[in-house]
C-alpha cells in the first residue's frame, strides 16, 4: 500500500498543479459555479483581515478611530515601519527566527531520513520496540513538557542560547515516520544491487535513498519550517534576552511594551509574514499534502 502510494501521489501532484478536474468526473455547470462562489467567500475571509493590517500599518495610530473607517490611508504614513526597525530589534528577531527554523529543518531532514531508512529497510534487534516507542511519543503534547524541559535545558546550561531553541524540537518524532513512509516505497532491489557492489549503508542512503525521496523531503522540510516559524511557548520560556528572541515572541512583546500601538503592531505583523510567505511560494508547487497523512498509515 505505502509502496504504491509514494510513486502514485507524485503523479497526482503533477495533475493537481495543472488544475484538472481530478477524479475524472464531468462536473455539472451549477456545481462548478457554486464551487467558485464558495471559494471566493473563503478567499475573502482569509485575506480581508490582512488588508486591514496593511491599512492599519500605514496610518498614524490617532487616525485609527476615524469614522467611517478609511481603508486606504491618506496620506500614507511610513512612521510605523521606521519605528519598527529603529526602536526594536526587529531585524534581529527575523534573522533569529530564520536561523533557528532553518537549522531545525536541516537537522531534522538529515536525522529523520537516516532514522526512517533504518526503520524502513534494516532488520535489527529491537526494531519493533523502537518504532512503537517513537510512535507513542508522537502523542506526547510538547506544551505539557515545558516545565521539565526548562529544567533539562537549564541543567545543560543552554537557557537563553540558540541551542535551547534548536535542540528540543529535534525530539519530535513525526518526521521519522513521514521519512519512513517515503523510503518504504523504494524497491528493495535498488539497494540490494548496490550492496552487492560493496556499497556501505551510508553510501546507499546518500547516493540512492536521498535523491529518490527528495520530493517528500521538501514537504517534510516545509512542514517543519512552518511549525518552527510559528512556535511560541517554548521560545517564550527558553529565551529571555530580547536580542536572541524569535519573531512570534518579539511581536507579542510589542503589544505589552507599547500598550496598544496598533500601527506599530500591524507593521510588525506584516513584516513578519513576509519571509514565511516567500518560503512557501518557493516550494508550494512541490507541496503535496498526502505525504503528511501517509506518515501514520499502517
Amino acid at each position: 500500500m505505502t509502496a504504491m502510494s509514494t510513486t502514485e501521489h507524485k503523479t497526482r501532484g503533477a495533475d493537481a498543479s495543472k488544475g484538472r478536474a481530478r477524479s475524472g468526473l464531468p462536473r455539472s455547470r451549477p456545481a462548478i459555479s457554486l464551487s467558485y462562489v464558495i471559494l471566493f467567500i473563503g478567499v475573502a475571509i482569509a485575506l480581508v483581515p490582512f488588508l486591514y493590517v496593511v491599512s492599519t500599518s500605514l496610518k498614524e495610530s490617532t487616525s485609527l478611530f476615524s469614522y467611517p473607517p478609511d481603508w486606504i490611508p491618506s496620506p500614507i504614513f511610513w512612521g510605523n515601519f521606521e519605528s519598527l526597525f529603529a526602536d526594536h530589534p526587529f531585524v534581529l528577531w527575523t534573522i533569529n527566527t530564520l536561523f533557528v527554523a532553518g537549522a531545525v529543518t536541516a537537522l531534522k531532514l538529515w536525522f529523520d531520513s537516516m532514522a526512517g531508512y533504518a526503520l524502513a529497510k534494516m532488520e535489527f534487534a529491537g526494531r519493533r520496540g523502537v518504532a512503537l516507542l517513537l510512535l507513542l511519543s508522537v502523542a506526547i503534547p510538547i506544551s505539557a513538557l515545558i516545565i521539565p524541559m526548562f529544567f533539562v535545558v537549564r541543567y545543560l546550561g543552554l537557557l537563553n542560547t540558540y541551542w535551547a531553541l534548536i535542540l528540543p524540537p529535534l525530539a519530535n518524532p513525526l518526521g521519522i515516520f513521514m521519512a519512513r513512509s517515503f523510503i518504504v516505497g523504494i524497491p528493495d532491489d535498488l539497494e540490494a544491487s548496490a550492496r552487492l557492489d560493496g556499497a556501505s549503508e551510508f553510501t546507499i542512503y546518500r547516493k540512492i535513498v536521498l535523491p529518490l525521496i527528495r520530493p517528500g523531503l521538501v514537504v517534510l522540510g516545509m512542514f517543519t519550517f512552518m511549525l518552527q516559524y510559528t512556535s511560541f511557548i517554548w521560545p517564550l520560556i527558553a529565551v529571555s534576552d530580547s536580542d536572541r528572541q524569535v519573531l512570534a515572541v518579539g511581536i507579542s512583546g510589542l503589544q505589552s511594551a507599547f500598550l496598544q500601538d496598533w500601527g506599530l503592531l500591524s507593521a510588525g505583523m506584516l513584516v513578519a509574514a513576509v519571509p514565511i510567505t516567500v518560503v512557501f511560494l518557493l516550494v508550494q508547487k512541490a507541496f503535496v499534502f498526502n505525504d503528511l497523512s501517509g506518515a501514520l498509515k499502517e
Partner: protein
Amino acid sequence: MTLSPEEHRRLAKRYRRRTTLTAYAFLGPNLVAFAVFLLIPVVWLLVSTFRTGGVLGPAEFVGLDNWRDTFSDPLARTSIRNTVVYSAMAIPTVFIIAMILALALNAIPRGGAPIRVALYLPTLQPAVVAAFIFTFVLHPDFGVINYAVRWLGGDPINFLGDTTLALPTIAGIEVWRGTGFWTMMFLAGLTALPGELYHAAELDGAGAIRRFIRLTLPLLRPTFYFAVIFATIVNLQLFDSVFALTDGGPVNSTVSVSLYIYRSLFLFGDIGFGATLSFLLVITVLLLTGLQTYLLRDRK
C-alpha cells in the same frame, strides 16, 4: 568456497550484529534527542508529581498531595473544561469548513493554484499574529465587524471581554488560521480517490450527496485518521492565542490547561502542581489518541 554450518552460523550472527549496530547508528541522533527532550522530561514529570519545591530548596517527597491539590483545584477543573470545550468547538468547525473548501477546489477546472495560496496564508502566521490581527478586526471601537454591527443599528460587541463570547472567539480565530492547512490536507486526500468508482456510482444513479457519504468519506479514512489525531494533539495544547489575547480572562473563562501549567511554573513557582497538571495532559492525550486509533482502525 564452502562454509561449514557452524561457520555459516557465526558469519550470519556477525552480519546481524553489524546491521543492528549500523541501524542504531542511523537512529542515533534521534534516539539521543528523544531520550533527552522527551523521555527524561516525562519521567521527571512523573517523579515531580510526588514531590514539592525544588526551585529554591531541595525537593521533598509529599506522596499524593499534588494529585489531591490538582483534582480539588477549581481553576484546574475550569482550565480542563475550557480546553475541552474549545477543542470541541474548533476541531469539528475547521474540519467541516475545510472539507467544503476542499470539495470546491476539487470541483473547479482552473484557477486552483492562486486560490490555494490565498487560503493557506493564514496558516503560515504564528498564532500570536493571527490573534493580534483579530484584535483589530473584532475591536469594540474600531474593528470592522463592529462597524458593521453599528451600521446595522446594534450595540458594539466586546468579543474578547465577554465571558461567554471569549472562548468561542478564540476558537474562531484558530479556525481561521487552521482552515488552510486542513483544506490542503483534505484536498490531497480527495485528489487521490479512484475516479472509476465514482463513474460506477454515478451510473448506478447515486446522487452527489450519497456519493459523498457512501464513497468519499469512507475512502478518506486514512486522511481523517491523521487529521483527528493531529488536531486533537495540537488543540488540547491551546496556549499562544490565549496568552496573547486574554491571558485567561475575562474571569478565567479562557484559561487553558497549558496556560495554567505555564503560570504554575512562572507565576507561582509551584512545580509539583504544574507537573501533575502536565502529567494529566500527557496521559489524556495518549489515551485519547489510543481511543481514536481504535475507533478509526481499518475494519477489514
